[in-house]
């Protein structure tokens, strides 16, 4: 992780000259960041977490919906008193939602934030893309 930053920073000293060079080239500074192993790593870990997790909770949700819709007999079985299998399945959706929420927040706080922060600081300090960072036109609305 640290080595990558060095590698990125080593592409040239920050300053007007560097800006001029980078803008005349076909590759932009953001593309250079995007290509860096450090960013690719961040992106891969993000996608490897959220995509399977999304597939998982959607599959679990639609399993519940389909059972509630087409397996009335099974879902209507009493477990304790008037508590049915269907009700437990429904409460299970609450439990899984809370669990995924906490798992994601914990993972993002521990694994992603520091890396993202590090990259952001390098980009915003101008070490990578001095001059082109606020690419969006500002309307001067910030006080």
């Amino acid at each position, binding site marked *: 992780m640290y080595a990558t930053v060095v590698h990125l920073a080593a592409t040239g000293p920050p300053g007007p000259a560097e800006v001029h060079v980078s803008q005349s080239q076909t590759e932009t500074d953001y593309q250079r960041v995007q290509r860096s192993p450090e*960013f690719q790593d961040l992106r891969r870990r993000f996608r490897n977490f959220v995509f399977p997790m999304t597939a998982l909770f959607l599959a679990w949700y639609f399993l519940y*919906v389909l059972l509630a819709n087409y397996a009335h007999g099974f879902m209507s079985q009493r477990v304790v008193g008037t*508590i049915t299998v269907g009700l437990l399945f*429904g409460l299970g959706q609450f439990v899984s939602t809370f669990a995924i929420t906490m798992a994601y927040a914990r993972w993002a706080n521990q694994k992603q934030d520091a890396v993202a922060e590090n*990259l*952001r600081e390098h980009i915003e300090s101008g070490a990578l893309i001095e001059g082109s960072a606020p690419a969006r036109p500002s309307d001067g609305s910030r006080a």
Partner: protein
Amino acid sequence: MIAVGAPVVAAAAAGGQVGDPVVNIAIFGAFVLVTLVIVFRASRNNKSAADYYAAGRSFTGPQNGTAIAGDYLSAASFLGICGAIAIYGYDGFLYSIGFLVAWLVALLLVAELLRNTGRFTMADVLSFRLKQRPVRLAAALSTLAVVFFYLLAQMAGAGGLVALLLGIDGVAGQALVIAVVGALMILYVLVGGMKGTTWVQIIKAILLIAGAGLMTIWVLARFGFDLSAVLQGAIDAAGEGGETLVEPGRQYGATALTQLNFLSLALALVLGTAGLPHVLMRFYTVPSAKEARRSVVWAIWLIGIFYLFTLVLGYGAGALVGPETIMSSPGKANSAAPLLAYELGGVFLLGIISAVAFATILAVVAGLTITAAASFAHDIYASVIKQGQVAPDGEVRVARVTVVVIGALAIVGGIFANGQNVAFLVALAFAVAASANLPTILYSLFWKRFNTSGALWSMYGGLVSCIVLIAFSPVVSGKVDPVTGDSLSMIRDTSVDFAIFPLENPGIVSIPLAFLLGIVGTLLSKEQPHPEKFAEMEVRSLTGAGAEKATSH
């Protein structure tokens, strides 16, 4: 008020009106007074567009999460779901589950990335790497459509609630109250901007969740803290066939068609939340993506716990009030929760709960209005009409004018929508959001090849198909109650029937269609890809580089 005197007596005589209107109005008035003071105090620093639309990005995650819960737990959640569970039992529970699980889409795929790449509106993100003007226009139009359906639902809820709580049964009296609610909402948003609106949401969320929690404990205490006994009570109160209250299918199980309706609803609910513009806009009120994440975590806990309360409250209302009493009251299913409050704690608890329900409607309507105003002023006026050439305060001035116009439209629309099923109208708003907004949001964040043409195909395709299917569905015309012969559609004349699309929720058709159109439109276009814009968007979305910071005062 004198003009509606006769209907009041009539309603009271029929056992329709409950509680003491004076108590109800007094508690509600106290809420309005307190929140107005807070709104005025909070609005002193409203200078720039970032202040007005995004509250200076100065709220913390927990504050914003509570405000999101306040925004999200609308009258549909409280009154609609309690009523649906009281009457239909288990099938009403689906609304809560769909509304909750949907937050995972927002948490995992949308909230942080959106916070990092946008400034004020959903269109900021969608137009980031695409052609600005056409995409902004499309996004603003779909925002306005979603807000319109959502507003109708809230205003319809206000009418029904008024009928029950203030004993105002006449159409003119209800229209007057809807106008008062609308005028108050305009005042909040006009003066308070996003900061004032957020504080109203926070106060309301705390009151609503605390009130529902109190009632839940009360109901459970009446049944020896045994959930099974609450359910048994509801079964007993429902009389013959009551057993099906704890089984799926009581509302949607009748035919293959109603089962398809259930699937369509389930799809719209789970994919709708992450495309709701007023929810998305809330992520801009915090200083960073990390705070946006904390917001959603807080919101999921608060919303989830609240929906667990509604399960108890719905069955509790069925058990303690009884479905017949609920359905014969002026507000029908929407009155289950207030009637339960009256049954538990008499006039005083009813007064508190109804004030909370009023506050709920007021706060949600304020949140919707500021979203619509921001979308019109920022996307249509500043970017499309003026092509970005506006003075910093010009945009906010237009937004304020828009607030008044939307407020007026909401009042008129609310008077017409009065009497419609609230949870159901909200489900339509979710269908529009899931069809018109979500595909483009996901594609533009995650799909490198996605282009302007794909965005326009998907957004307009999703929006138009959704609205056309609703227009030709039984919701608008041709649905007749088989028992009473009354119309259950928006057009009350039963001889008018142009319903050729059989489903009441269009989601199962329009959502896959919009996703497909996004792919087809992208692949058919000869537009050159912009890898450098995608690189900027991807890097910024994941690292937060160049993201808007909090304003300092």
